[in-house]
């Protein structure tokens, strides 16, 4: 019986990459149809197929690692590089929105009344809900680290409690942001203030939801005994992502909420 003479993972042939690309095609064309012709069937189809591909692709990775043992230390090292590169690319994504905000806010035009915040805009008080949100995300950074330590120390009950608490804090943040969005005295259509505020915080909120989902999957896997005390990279990747989301919020809070008010 032939065995591989290397420590890399030659994956089984898989339909998910090409189906994922097709789902992206359907989603983007769906956006066009929705914007220009007010029909959302194609968009719904695109998002649904994207969800199905993601579920099955990541399910297969869990099968390949936890159940088939393909994730050797070599493979794990490469996955770490991959996750770090991905998070770096996301950092650049947000950098663009911070650039846009600073471009407009450092030299406010006469149309804005030559000031920032522009005339007529009542910004949110940074010492109210935004400060609470900052405390919530910082606390969640502590609880996710607590969960990690519990995993490495094989303390199952504490790991589950700490990770569950992290996810609850994430949901609490999202709920509070949603009420802030609803109650805000300005909208995305209120000039460049509204645009920069809602696009930057909106994409951040989306990343909180993505991070919470990633952590929830990790909680499920933790309960199902997938992680060992020295091999739990899925959890580490989720924790890195979560810390990244926290750091982005801190920058948002300091620049847009605090300096920008």
């Amino acid at each position, binding site marked *: 019986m032939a065995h*591989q003479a290397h420590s890399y993972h030659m994956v*089984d042939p898989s339909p998910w990459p090409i189906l994922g690309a097709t789902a992206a095609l359907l989603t983007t064309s769906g956006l066009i149809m929705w914007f220009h012709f007010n029909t959302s069937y*194609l968009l719904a189809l*695109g998002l649904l*197929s994207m969800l199905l591909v993601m579920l*099955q692709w990541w399910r297969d990775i869990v099968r390949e690692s936890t159940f088939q043992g393909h994730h050797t230390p070599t493979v794990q090292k490469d996955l770490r590089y991959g996750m770090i590169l991905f998070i770096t690319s996301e950092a650049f994504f947000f950098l663009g929105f911070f650039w846009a905000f600073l471009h407009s806010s450092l030299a406010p035009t006469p149309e804005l009344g030559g000031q920032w915040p522009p005339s007529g805009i009542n910004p949110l008080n940074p010492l109210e809900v935004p400060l609470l949100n900052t405390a919530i995300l910082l606390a969640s950074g502590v609880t996710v680290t607590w969960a990690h330590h519990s995993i490495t120390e094989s303390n199952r009950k504490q790991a589950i409690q700490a990770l569950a608490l992290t996810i609850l804090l994430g949901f609490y943040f999202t709920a509070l942001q949603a009420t802030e969005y609803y109650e805000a005295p300005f909208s995305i259509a209120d000039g460049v203030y509204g645009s920069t505020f809602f696009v930057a915080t909106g994409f951040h909120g989306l990343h909180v939801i993505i991070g919470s989902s990633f952590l929830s999957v990790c909680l499920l896997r933790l309960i199902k005994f997938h992680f060992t005390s020295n*091999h739990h990279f899925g959890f580490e990747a989720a924790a890195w992502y979560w810390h990244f989301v926290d750091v982005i919020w801190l920058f948002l809070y300091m620049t847009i909420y605090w300096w920008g008010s």
Partner: protein
Amino acid sequence: MQGLKPIVSTESPALIFGTTTKLASDLPATDSFLGKNKVPDLQKLFQKADGLPVHLKRGVPDKLLYRTTMALTIGGTIYCLIALYMASQPRNQK
């Protein structure tokens, strides 16, 4: 089937992971907190030498989900091409 067979064998799945980590069976009974460890059984299932690719390894539920995804994506692509073709037709100026 790919040229090289996978390195994992069907016997004794515990050999894949280092024995330095605690096995669930070593933990005291109180640690059956929230369900028992089914990972060794699943390891046996997914390491069966049946030639199936990992995305179909579980049999019927995998096949159903795969076919549903394929149907939605291919159907959607056809719909997408028709919609884009129609959208590219010039509107008649009145």
